Each structure stands twice: as structure tokens, then as C-alpha cells.
């Protein structure tokens, strides 16, 4: 019984076939879903939709930033599209979601957060350090508050990576658990099994929403960290 519970985590081990890591396929496949538009003035429907979406995301992310921050447009928009596609593709049956891997999320979060921090410290060092003390704090609280703010600053990349990992892992785990329950109940209590199936459908809709929201939150928080520092 204990081994059956622990085997639910097996879906998150990085798959490999004959020693070839298959995570390569999971990570390069989203690029196949983004056809490059040709030289025509009016392209296909998919290209038009993609272009509309990219413009929407870029405008949304770049609006709070002034001109100097606009050089981050490509990296933030492409990160958003990348994470969105990976998360959504992972909801298909039998697919592997690379963003359930803590290694990938930390690898994306840590350098980007560090880049925003170093940009701030390099261009406006006193303004960046001033963020560590909120305005209007009573004087005796200042040392404690600076330590708290520094901790919250340093924990940002960890929070960014672990948030995405935990949300997606929990979602996939729930889906697997409830579908196992549905199948196990089917022979003995079919009505309960159907109710569990209904719960599974609602959960899948929730997971689609979570996949999109988590990708957006990741990129949004990075842009917020950028706003403070640029």
C-alpha cells in the first residue's frame, strides 16, 4: 500500500529512453506549434492569432515600464509563450511537463531575477537599496525591517521557481489521484465513480486555468522586480 502511494510521483521523474533524455522533446516541441510567418502581408489564421496574442502580452507587460525597460520585451514575452505552451501541453494525456521539474524553474527564475537585481544595483544603487526600507516606518523598527526586507528580496527566485513547480506538480498529482479513484470505483460503485468523473472534469478545467495563470504570474512578477530596479 505504501509503495502504491509513492508510485504516484513516478510521473515526475525525467523520462529517458535507452539513455537518451526525452525531456529534450518536451522542451523543443512547443516551438513546432509556433509557425514562423512568411513574407506575405496577410498570413494564415494561426499566424494572425499568434501575432495578436504576442502583441497583447507585450503591451500588457511593457506598459508599466519606461523606455529603458522595453529592451526586456523579447525575453519576457518569449518566456511567457514558452511557459504557457509547456504548461498547456502537459495537460494532454501521457505527456511530460518540464515545468514540474524544480531544476528548470529555478534555472529560469534565478538568472532573470539576478539580472533585474544587478541592473538595479548598477544603474541606481541607492534607489535599489532604498526599497529595503518602506516609507514611514517607526525608527526602532528599522533594523528588523531591513533584515526582513532583505530576506524577502533574497527569497524571490526560490519563491518564483517553487511556486511554478508546486502548482503544476500538485495539479498533475491531483489529476492522477482522482482518475485512479474513478477507475477503482467504477466496478463497485458506478454512481460514485461518475461523480468522481465530474470532479475530474472540473479539475481539468481548473488545471487549464492554473497552467495559464502560473505562466503569467511568473513573468508578471519578473516584470515587477524589473520595474523596481530599472
Amino acid at each position, binding site marked *: 500500500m505504501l509503495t502504491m502511494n509513492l508510485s504516484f*510521483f*513516478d510521473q*515526475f*521523474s*525525467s523520462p529517458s529512453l535507452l539513455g537518451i*533524455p526525452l*525531456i*529534450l522533446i518536451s*522542451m*523543443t516541441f*512547443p*516551438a513546432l506549434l*509556433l509557425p*514562423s*510567418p512568411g513574407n506575405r*502581408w496577410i498570413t494564415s489564421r494561426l*499566424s494572425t492569432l*499568434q*501575432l495578436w496574442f*504576442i*502583441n497583447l502580452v507585450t503591451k500588457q507587460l511593457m506598459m508599466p515600464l519606461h523606455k529603458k525597460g522595453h529592451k526586456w520585451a*523579447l*525575453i519576457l*514575452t*518569449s*518566456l511567457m*509563450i*514558452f511557459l504557457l505552451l509547456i504548461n498547456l501541453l502537459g495537460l494532454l494525456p501521457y505527456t511530460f511537463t*518540464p515545468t*514540474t*521539474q*524544480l*531544476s*528548470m524553474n*529555478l*534555472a*529560469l527564475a534565478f*538568472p532573470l531575477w539576478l539580472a533585474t537585481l544587478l541592473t538595479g544595483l548598477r544603474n541606481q544603487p541607492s534607489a535599489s537599496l532604498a526599497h529595503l526600507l518602506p516609507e514611514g516606518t517607526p525608527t526602532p523598527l528599522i533594523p528588523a525591517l531591513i533584515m526582513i526586507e532583505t530576506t524577502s528580496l533574497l527569497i524571490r527566485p526560490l519563491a518564483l521557481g517553487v511556486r511554478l*513547480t508546486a502548482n503544476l*506538480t500538485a495539479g498533475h498529482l491531483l489529476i492522477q489521484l482522482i482518475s485512479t479513484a474513478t477507475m477503482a470505483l467504477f466496478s463497485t460503485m458506478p454512481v460514485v465513480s461518475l461523480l468522481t468523473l465530474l470532479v475530474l472534469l472540473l479539475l481539468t478545467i481548473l488545471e487549464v486555468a492554473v497552467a495559464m495563470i502560473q505562466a503569467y504570474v511568473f513573468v508578471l512578477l519578473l516584470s515587477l522586480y524589473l520595474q523596481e530596479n530599472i
Partner: protein
Amino acid sequence: MPQLNPNPWFFIMLTSWLTFSLIIQPKLLTFITMNPPYNKPPMTPKTTPWSWPWT
């Protein structure tokens, strides 16, 4: 938890940045926005006649 297995960590970190920077970003760079269409400002046509140089 298999995500905490340090064995594929470096490989996953490397491949995620490589696909992100070498595949996704150039693909998105090829998306060029068109200028939105707008009506030309109404111009009254010039009606000054000119004399044809009939030879």
C-alpha cells in the same frame, strides 16, 4: 520526490536555457507587426490647369 534527484539537474537547466534562447526567441523575433491601416487625410485635388505644349 523525483524532482529532487540531482542527477539530471544540470542537463535540464542547460537544455531549458538553450531551447529558450536559441529556439523560442529567434522564432518570436520573426513576428513582425503590420502598421494599422488608416485612411489618408482628405486632400482637395489641385485644379490649376496647365497648358499642354501643343507643338
